[in-house]
């Protein structure tokens, strides 16, 4: 057995950095202990695969892995920060350096790739910086505005329209023939509009969102919304502490969107919601037993569909990520992570 050089030993055993090599076309040819620790795959599972497996599906679709190699070839190296995917589908915030490796004649032999997991550091930094403070204000202000609009619509517009409807019904009883039919139709129109406005206020300010705790709020919402549709639900969590208010709102709103999709599209009988503390944040799964997505294997179904954009935007604005997956007949899962670091101030 050939003796390994000291340098090889170092590379193989470093656990804080993923250090591995790609061939000139981007296939993984080596894998160290740090890569296994950070990304979850063993060398046996990943060597030989194209390194685009390490990127989120949307980045692969946008051609990001190939572009990064092109830049590394042209400029010698490339540095990037962004989300990368682990074996289990979760994501981590990575600092990545790709270096083009050339032999003595200048021929491209492949690439060296060094990756660090900055998820927790980024979560803490984001919570403490100006951006984190602005985000908290923004989330709070948006919720206040939504609540005010919901109350205005509820207490003023809907009440007035209900009174109009009642009067139209009364009027209809005093009319005959075509006049009665016309007024009855008018009442039906008002009635339908009231129903739509009620749905609007419900979405703007769902039950439970003002609860003091995230788990209690989600339970109230599930009790009222999901149970009402003949679905059963299970909510489990191992949250060490109540997340900051803006994080709780973000989690609640993404769950609300995910549950709306389940109710509208999934034809499911049961839904499970799981919350776990992870990497200075909260990791959430909303899983149903419905019919999944129509196109097999698509991690991100039709753009714009299923409120996916809204969920992803909310997670990303908060400094996190959101992924959706589901094969036909296997149900669907919305999975997301958002940082949850208290700023230590009221």
């Amino acid at each position, binding site marked *: 057995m050939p003796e390994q050089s000291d340098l090889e030993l170092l590379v193989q055993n470093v656990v804080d950095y993923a250090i591995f090599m790609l061939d000139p076309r981007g296939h993984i040819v080596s894998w160290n202990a740090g890569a296994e620790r950070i990304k979850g795959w063993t060398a046996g599972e990943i060597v030989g695969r194209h390194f685009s497996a390490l990127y989120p599906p949307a980045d692969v679709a946008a051609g990001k892995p190939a572009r990064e190699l092109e830049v590394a070839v042209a400029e010698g190296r490339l540095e990037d920060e962004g989300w990368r995917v682990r074996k289990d589908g979760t994501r981590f915030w990575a600092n990545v350096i790709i270096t083009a490796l050339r032999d003595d004649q200048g021929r491209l032999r492949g690439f060296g790739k060094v990756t660090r997991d900055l998820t927790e550091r980024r979560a803490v930094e984001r919570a403490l910086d100006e951006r984190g403070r602005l985000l908290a204000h923004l989330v709070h202000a948006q919720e206040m505005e939504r609540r005010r609009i919901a109350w205005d619509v509820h207490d003023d517009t809907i*009440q007035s329209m*209900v009174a109009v*409807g*009642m009067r139209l019904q*009364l009027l209809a009883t005093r009319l005959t023939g075509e006049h009665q039919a016309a007024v009855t139709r008018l009442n039906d129109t008002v009635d339908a509009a009231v129903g739509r406005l009620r749905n609007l206020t419900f979405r703007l300010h769902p039950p439970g969102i003002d609860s003091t705790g995230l788990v209690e709020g989600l339970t109230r919402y599930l009790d*009222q919304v999901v149970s009402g549709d003949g679905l059963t639900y299970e909510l489990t969590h191992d949250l060490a502490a109540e997340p900051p208010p803006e994080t709780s709102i973000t989690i609640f709103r993404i769950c609300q969107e995910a549950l709306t999709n389940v109710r509208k599209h999934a034809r499911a009988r049961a839904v499970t919601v799981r919350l776990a503390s992870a990497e200075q944040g909260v990791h959430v799964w909303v899983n149903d037993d419905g019919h999944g997505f129509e196109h097999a294997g698509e991690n991100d179904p039709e753009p714009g569909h299923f409120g996916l954009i809204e969920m992803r935007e909310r997670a990303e604005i908060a400094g996190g990520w959101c992924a959706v997956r589901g094969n036909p007949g296997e149900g669907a899962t919305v999975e997301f992570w958002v940082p949850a670091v208290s700023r230590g101030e009221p």
Partner: protein
Amino acid sequence: MSDPVTVLVADDEPLIREVLAEVLEAEPGLTVVAVAADAGEAAELAELHRPAVAVLDVRMPGGGAWAAREIRRRSPATRVVAFSAYGDSASVDEMRQAGVTTYLLKGLPNTAIVAAVRRAATG
């Protein structure tokens, strides 16, 4: 012919209380004996008129739940019906705890409101 069922209507929204009173008044066998705009007025008028049924808004000033308790105290024979724009479980529970057994959501057809008031009177 039996005596008409007497009804008290209480709602802080004038459009609603006026039309609700008219709807009930237009029904044979029902008569609206009092109309109130808040919880305090509802309790006072209930004590004065001893209606068979009181139809109370849940979110009027003074609170529908408070009015329901006061009416049950001051006029124990009066049956209380809640008439609310809010159907959330917290609002419904609050009224139930105040002794209200019938909870109507605003937006129900007039015929359903009338039927509920008649049922409350006989129940």
